[in-house]
C-alpha cells in the first residue's frame, strides 16, 4: 500500500511524501469506515428482518441498498434542537467525544501485512486507552442534556463500561502473553499457519469473554441498558436530534466494526487464511485459498458483525444488576483464572506459541 501511494504521488516533492502517504491512508480508511457503517445499518436491518420473518428495508435503491443514505440525508437536514437549560457547549461536543476515539483507534489496526497507519509497539495499550475514552461521550451527553432519562442512561452506561473494560483488558493480557508482543501485526504473525494455530483454541475462554465485553462496551443488545427504550426512552441520546444524533449513531457502528475487527485479529488470525498450511490444497488449483488476504479478515469481521445482530434478535435485554453480576462475578474471574492457566501452559510448553 505504501509503495502504491508513493508511486501515485510521485509528482510531489519527496519531502512532502512523508506527510501525504499517511494522510491518504487516513482518508481511505475513513471513507471505508463511514461507508462500512452505512451498509452495516442496512445489514443489521435486513438480518433482524429475516429473523422476524419480515422483508426489511426494500424501497430506496436496488433491493433497498441505499436505505442508509436516505436515513443519513434525512438526519442531516433535520434541526439540531438544544434543550432549554442544557449545557450548550458540552451538549454539542459530546457526540464528537464519542466519535473521535472510535475513529482514532483505527490508527493502530493493521488490515493486512502492509496497510496500517501507525505501526506502534504499544498497539494494544493504545487501543485500551482509546476505548476507555469513549465513555465520556455518553456520560457528558447524558449530563449536558438536562434530562432525567438521559442522565439515568449516562449513569448506567458509565458503570457498565468501567466494569466491562476490566474484563476486556484482562482478555487482552492473555492475548499479549500468547502473542509475545503488544503490536497487533506481530500478534497476527504469531498465529500464522491455519485455523488450528489461531488463538481462539488455546484462549477460548478469553475469546468468549472479549467478544461479550465488546458487545457490552458498544452498548449493543442485550447489554443496551444505556438506551433501554422500554424503560428510559432512549437513554443518553434522548434529547439528540438531527446531525448530532447521526454522529452518535455513526460512533456506535464504527465501534462495532472495531470490536469485530479486533476479535478477528486477536483470536482468529486476522488476515490469515482458514486453509493456510493445509496439505489438501497444496499444489492444486485452489492453492490461492491459502494466501493471507484482507478478504479473509473481511469474512471474519462479517461473521462477528452478524453475531452482533443475531444476539440482538435472540436475547431479551439484561437487567441492570444482572449485567453487573455477569461482568464482575463471571467474566473477570474467568479471565483471571485463564491467565493463570496460560502461565502454567507456558511453563509446561503446551500450546502453539513459542516461549520467547
Amino acid at each position, binding site marked *: 500500500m505504501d509503495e502504491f501511494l508513493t508511486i501515485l504521488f510521485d509528482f510531489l516533492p519527496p519531502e512532502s511524501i512523508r506527510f501525504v502517504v499517511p494522510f491518504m491512508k487516513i482518508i481511505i480508511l475513513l471513507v471505508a469506515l463511514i461507508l462500512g457503517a452505512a451498509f452495516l445499518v442496512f445489514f443489521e436491518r435486513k438480518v433482524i428482518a429475516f429473523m422476524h420473518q419480515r422483508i426489511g428495508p426494500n424501497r430506496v435503491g436496488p433491493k433497498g441498498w441505499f436505505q442508509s443514505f436516505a436515513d443519513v440525508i434525512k438526519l442531516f437536514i433535520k434541526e439540531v434542537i438544544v434543550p432549554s437549560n442544557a449545557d450548550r457547549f458540552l451538549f454539542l461536543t459530546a457526540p464528537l467525544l464519542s466519535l473521535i476515539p472510535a475513529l482514532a483507534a483505527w490508527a493502530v489496526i493493521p488490515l493486512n501485512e502492509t496497510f496500517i497507519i501507525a505501526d506502534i509497539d*504499544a498497539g494494544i495499550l493504545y487501543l485500551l*486507552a482509546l476505548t476507555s*475514552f469513549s465513555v465520556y461521550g455518553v456520560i*457528558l451527553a447524558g*449530563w449536558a442534556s438536562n434530562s432525567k432519562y438521559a442522565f439515568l442512561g449516562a449513569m448506567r452506561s458509565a458503570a457498565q*463500561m*468501567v466494569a466491562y473494560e476490566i474484563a476486556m483488558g484482562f482478555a487482552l493480557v492473555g492475548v499479549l502473553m500468547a502473542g509475545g508482543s503488544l503490536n497487533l501485526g506481530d500478534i497476527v504473525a504469531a498465529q500464522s499457519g491455519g485455523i488450528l494455530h489461531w488463538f481462539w483454541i488455546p484462549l477460548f475462554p478469553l475469546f468468549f469473554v472479549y467478544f461479550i465485553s465488546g458487545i457490552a462496551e458498544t452498548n449493543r443488545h442485550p447489554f443496551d441498558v444505556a438506551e433501554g427504550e422500554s424503560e428510559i426512552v432512549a437513554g443518553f441520546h434522548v434529547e439528540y436530534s438531527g446531525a448530532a444524533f447521526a454522529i452518535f449513531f455513526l460512533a456506535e457502528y464504527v465501534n462495532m466494526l472495531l470490536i469485530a475487527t479486533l476479535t478477528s485479529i486477536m483470536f482468529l488470525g486476522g488476515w490469515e487464511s482458514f486453509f493456510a498450511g493445509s496439505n489438501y490444497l497444496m499444489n492444486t488449483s485452489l492453492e490461492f485459498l491459502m494466501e493471507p488476504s484482507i478478504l479473509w479478515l473481511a469474512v471474519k469481521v462479517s461473521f462477528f458483525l452478524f453475531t452482533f445482530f443475531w444476539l440482538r434478535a435472540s436475547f431479551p435485554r439484561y437487567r441492570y444488576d444482572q449485567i453487573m453480576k455477569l461482568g464482575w462475578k463471571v467474566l473477570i474471574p474467568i479471565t483471571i483464572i485463564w491467565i493463570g492457566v496460560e502461565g502454567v501452559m507456558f511453563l509446561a510448553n503446551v500450546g502453539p506459541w513459542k516461549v520467547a
Partner: protein
Amino acid sequence: MAFIEIIFYVFSSILVLTSLGVILFKNPVYSAISLILSFITSAALWLLLQAEFLAIVLILVYVGAVMVLFLFVVMMLNISDVIRTSRFNKIAPFALFIGLIIVGELITLIWIRSDQFSMTSSPISVLDTSVGNTTLLGTALFTDYLYSFEIAGFILLLAIVVSISLTLRRREGLKRQIVSEQVNIDPTKRMKLVDLKSEKN
C-alpha cells in the same frame, strides 16, 4: 526552533491553561473535564520523552477509570456556585501556602540537577531502543524490583478489600436473585392443575 520544541511549548501551555481551569471554572463538571484534558496533555508530553508506556497507562488509569468515577460523583452533586466559590475563598490562603512549598521544592530539585535535565530527552531514551520501553519496564519490575512490586500490589489489594468491607452493609429483608435456586426449581411445586367444572361437559 525544532519542530519537537514547538510541540513541547504548545502542549505545555495547554497543560498550564487546563490546570488553571481545574481550579478556576465555577462549574465542577468543567473542572473535571479540564483535569481530564490536563492528564491527556501530560501524557502527550511523556510521549515526547519516549515514555510511551507511562503515557498510555496515565490515560488508561486516570482518564479511563479514575476520572470517570470523579465525573460520576461530581455530576450527582448539586452544589450551587456560591457555596463553592465561598469555600474556595476560605481555603485559598492555605492552598497558596502549600502550592508555594511544592513550587519551592521543585525549583530546588531542578536547581540541583539542572545539568542532567533536558526538555526532550529522558533517561529512557538513553536505554536500548530496539525493544519498546514496555518491555524494559516489565523486565525491570519483574526481576530487580520484584519484591517491592509484589508488596505494592498486595498493599493495593488490601486497600480494596478493606474499603469494600468497611462500606459493606447487609440490609434485613433484602430480596436477592439466586440463580441456582431458579434453575433448580421443581415445576410441579410451582403449578397446580385444576379441573374446572365448566370444562366437563
